[in-house]
């Protein structure tokens, strides 16, 4: 409480004077006030008009009545500093000063202020300014004044190198003010600008020459005693050091030797006792006691303004719960006691809200989001204090204009200014768990609620401004994750490090996890954010740096749920470059080649070759190759082609087919027609299944997978496409356990060639084998037919082909 809104940027003494005057050091004003009231008489009406300098209207002919805009806070910072500068400027240029020529000074200053505030001029066109300056330089040259032209050009170039922001405006100003430079300017004038060379520094030789250090006693100990003026007891004068026999407390000596002292009594002005009495009387708070003191309306207003700014005031009391209570110690002449006290009570209620808000901003929170919110509120309160200070200033600073003194008008104004604060205070007070992790969500809900309710502009705007700071703080870890893949320790974040040391081949799926915890902002697409960060990490592993420049989130100027959430989505999308970069990496470079090569290894030709090799006895080679398929791909590809055994499944499906075929093909010629017929049928069966696998399953499925992988926009999509490939292959190879009876029957069918080869050379009939073949084939065909109704299309094709064999 009791913070004064000093603008830290301003530093001129005059400004500090003004602020000191504003902040309630009201004695000089009150004296004047009383003098005026005596002159004009206290009006009987509730509002008394107080006219400053009623006789001097400005030369411009308009007496300004002050009008306040609601958001005067911004004006505070801008208008007070130029006012101070204006005063200085008027003094320097016109030669009149406030102290000596008050009347003229004020006239000129008011005119100047009005003139400066005039906005009816065109904006400065920097190209126009540049061309005019070029024209001037050209003129200098034409009139044979090269040195001047060069001098001007050089300095314009130097100014440009400085990079001053307002350079075009300043130069335009010079051009307006310039007075026939072509005729009147002399280069010698520049020389006069240079400061005179400083005198050469004093050397020890000169000092010693002037006053040699060999006098008696010059090196003895000096006694520092307390003189008549204790601050001047240390003597720097070398002359005096030779007189040290006398104590340095000799006033005459001091006065003679030491530099001229500033006599403090010069600063005091004689005042008459009347004025002293008036001042003492005006300090009404000295008279508070058992009786009710009558004060002026203006005094009451200023006390109210003090209270609103959290400064101790004589009309109000604040208890330890920050509750403001009006004291019944005073009254004003214009209204009845009860009416006056009602007004004060109304102010006290407003003051309580502000005091409680101020008290809340002092509370310590450990979480960073509530801290950010507190900082927002504090900043806004500071601006509010500025508005109140401006109102106060209007009563103190005499601008030669009329100011209305009305406590009722103040009530209205204050109500308007504090309306948004009531809403904010309600939010804070109703939210006992500000320190909770979902505090930000409740703020957002409140914002949306206010929008739906059709809440008025300033209130919604206040809440929105206050929300933005903590929201930006909340976004920081998310932004960090998306831009550099770094995870900050943030309890709100659903992104966690799951397995820090997992294999690179499983980095995408296993290293990080997204665990929604209900604390994410509803508008943030967390899955997209998660993907982007993972892409950044992957790219870092691949050796890419500086993947995405940091882009800040820009909230929309006005709040609506749709606009805000759209802005968030746009921001996340703007950070999504790494996803595209990673995809390009996968498609174009060596990684892309590796991906397609890995798919080729699943295709019929290669695995068939392995199967044949195996039959020919190349087991070790085959085993090595099969392992290589699994582990040989680059780690980036392994993130897409997650753990799978599909190549083994394909191989294991192909192997018995090739083995059957080889066995049948190696059977020697025979004359037994039944054996030949069976051999033929078994060969047909093996071929049919082989064709099914290679042409109807592997080829189209892999082709489809390739297309899907090419079209995928991120690794998740690619991994999904690959997983789908595996599932489809497994299904079409009849691997699901529900199809075991069928696969068992097929396996039995494929054992028949071996059985046949055992009896090929003998006289045993093959009727039993033949019957077995028919039975098994029928079973397999019907089985596949039945599953094909609801399943893969290729099953239907297979069933149809197999059915020809049943005929």
């Amino acid at each position, binding site marked *: 409480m009791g913070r004064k809104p000093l603008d830290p940027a301003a530093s001129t003494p005059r400004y500090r004077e003004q602020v000191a005057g504003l902040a309630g050091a009201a004695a000089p004003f009150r004296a004047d006030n009383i003098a005026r009231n005596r002159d004009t008489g206290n009006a009987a009406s509730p509002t008394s008009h107080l006219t400053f300098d009623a006789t001097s209207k400005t030369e411009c002919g308009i007496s300004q009545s002050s009008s306040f805009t609601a958001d005067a806070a911004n004006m505070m910072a801008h208008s007070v500093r130029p006012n101070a500068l204006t005063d200085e400027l008027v003094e320097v240029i016109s030669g009149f000063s406030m102290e000596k020529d008050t009347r003229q000074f004020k006239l000129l200053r008011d005119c100047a202020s009005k003139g400066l505030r005039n906005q009816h001029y065109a904006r400065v066109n920097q190209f126009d300014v540049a061309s005019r300056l070029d024209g001037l330089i050209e003129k200098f040259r034409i009139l044979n004044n090269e040195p001047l032209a060069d001098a001007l050009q050089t300095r314009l170039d130097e100014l440009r190198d400085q990079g001053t922001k307002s350079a075009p405006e300043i130069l335009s100003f*010079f051009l307006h003010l310039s007075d026939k430079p072509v005729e009147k300017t002399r280069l010698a004038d520049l020389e006069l600008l240079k400061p005179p060379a400083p005198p050469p520094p004093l050397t020890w030789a000169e000092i010693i020459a002037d006053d040699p250090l060999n006098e008696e006693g010059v090196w003895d100990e000096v006694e520092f005693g307390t003189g008549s003026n204790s601050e001047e007891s240390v003597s720097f004068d070398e002359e005096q050091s030779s007189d040290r026999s006398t104590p340095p407390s000799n006033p005459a000596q001091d006065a003679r030797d030491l530099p001229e002292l500033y006599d403090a009594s010069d600063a005091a002005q004689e005042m008459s006792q009347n004025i002293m009495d008036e001042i003492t009387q005006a300090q009404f708070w000295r008279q508070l006691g058992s009786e009710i003191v009558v004060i002026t309306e203006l005094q009451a207003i200023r006390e109210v303004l003090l209270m609103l700014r959290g400064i101790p005031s004589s009309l109000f009391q604040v208890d330890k719960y920050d509750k403001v209570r009006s004291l019944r110690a005073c009254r004003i002449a214009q209204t009845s006691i009860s009416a006056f006290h009602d007004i004060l009570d109304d102010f006290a209620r407003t003051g309580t809200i502000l005091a409680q808000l101020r008290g809340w901003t002092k509370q310590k929170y450990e979480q960073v989001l509530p801290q950010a919110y507190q900082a927002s509120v504090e900043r806004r309160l500071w601006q509010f204090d500025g508005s109140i200070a401006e109102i106060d200033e209007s009563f103190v600073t005499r601008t030669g204009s009329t100011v209305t003194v009305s406590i009722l008008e103040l009530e209205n104004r204050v109500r308007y200014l504090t309306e948004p604060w009531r809403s904010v205070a309600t939010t804070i007070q109703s939210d006992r768990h500000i320190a909770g992790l979902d505090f930000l969500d409740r703020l957002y809900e409140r914002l949306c609620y206010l929008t739906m309710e059709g809440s008025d502009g300033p209130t919604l705007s206040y809440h929105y401004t206050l929300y933005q700071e903590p929201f930006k703080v909340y976004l920081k870890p998310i932004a960090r994750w998306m831009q550099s893949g770094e995870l900050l320790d943030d309890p709100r974040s659903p992104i966690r490090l799951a397995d820090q040391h997992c294999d690179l081949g499983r980095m995408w799926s296993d290293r990080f996890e997204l665990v929604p915890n209900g604390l994410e902002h509803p508008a943030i697409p967390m899955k997209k954010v998660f993907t982007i960060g993972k892409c950044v990490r992957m790219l870092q592993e691949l050796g890419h740096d500086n993947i995405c420049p940091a882009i800040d989130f820009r909230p929309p100027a006005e709040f609506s749920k749709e606009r805000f959430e759209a802005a968030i989505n746009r921001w996340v999308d703007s950070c999504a470059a790494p996803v595209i970069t990673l995809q390009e990496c996968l498609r174009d470079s060596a990684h892309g080649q590796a991906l397609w090569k890995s798919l080729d290894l699943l295709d019929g030709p290669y695995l068939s070759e392995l199967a044949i090799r195996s039959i020919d006895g190349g087991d070790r080679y085959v085993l090595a190759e099969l392992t290589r398929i699994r582990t040989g791909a680059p780690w980036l590809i392994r993130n897409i082609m997650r753990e799978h055994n599909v190549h083994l499944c394909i191989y294991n499906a192909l192997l018995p087919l090739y083995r059957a075929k080889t066995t049948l093909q190696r059977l020697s010629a025979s004359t037994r027609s039944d054996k030949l017929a069976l051999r033929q049928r078994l060969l047909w069966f093996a071929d049919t299944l082989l064709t099914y696998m290679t042409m109807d399953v592997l080829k189209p499925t892999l082709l489809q997978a390739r297309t899907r992988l090419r079209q995928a926009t991120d690794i998740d999509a690619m991994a999904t496409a690959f997983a789908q490939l595996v599932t489809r292959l497994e299904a079409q190879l009849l691997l699901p356990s529900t199809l075991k009876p069928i696969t068992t029957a097929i396996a039995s069918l494929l054992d028949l060639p071996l059985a046949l080869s055992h009896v090929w050379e003998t006289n045993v009939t093959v009727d039993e084998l033949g019957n077995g073949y028919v039975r098994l084939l029928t079973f397999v065909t019907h089985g596949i037919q039945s599953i094909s109704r609801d399943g893969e299309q290729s099953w239907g094709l297979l069933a149809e082909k197999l059915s020809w064999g049943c005929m």
Partner: protein
Amino acid sequence: MPAADDSKRKAARETIDILHEISTLLNTHLDRQSLSYCVSLIENGVNPEALANVIKDLRQHNPQQRSDNGL
């Protein structure tokens, strides 16, 4: 950071020096003090033409204006 503040002040001084020289070359009759006030006002958003008119106005009221040769 004192070093950064120092260099800022030094840079501001250099700019004012350059501006003072330019204003002298253009014969604006501005001394260094007035110039720095004007520059501050312009940086605070005052319109240059408005400021120039105000200065001309103020000069007319200066009793010493006729003998003033600008520095």
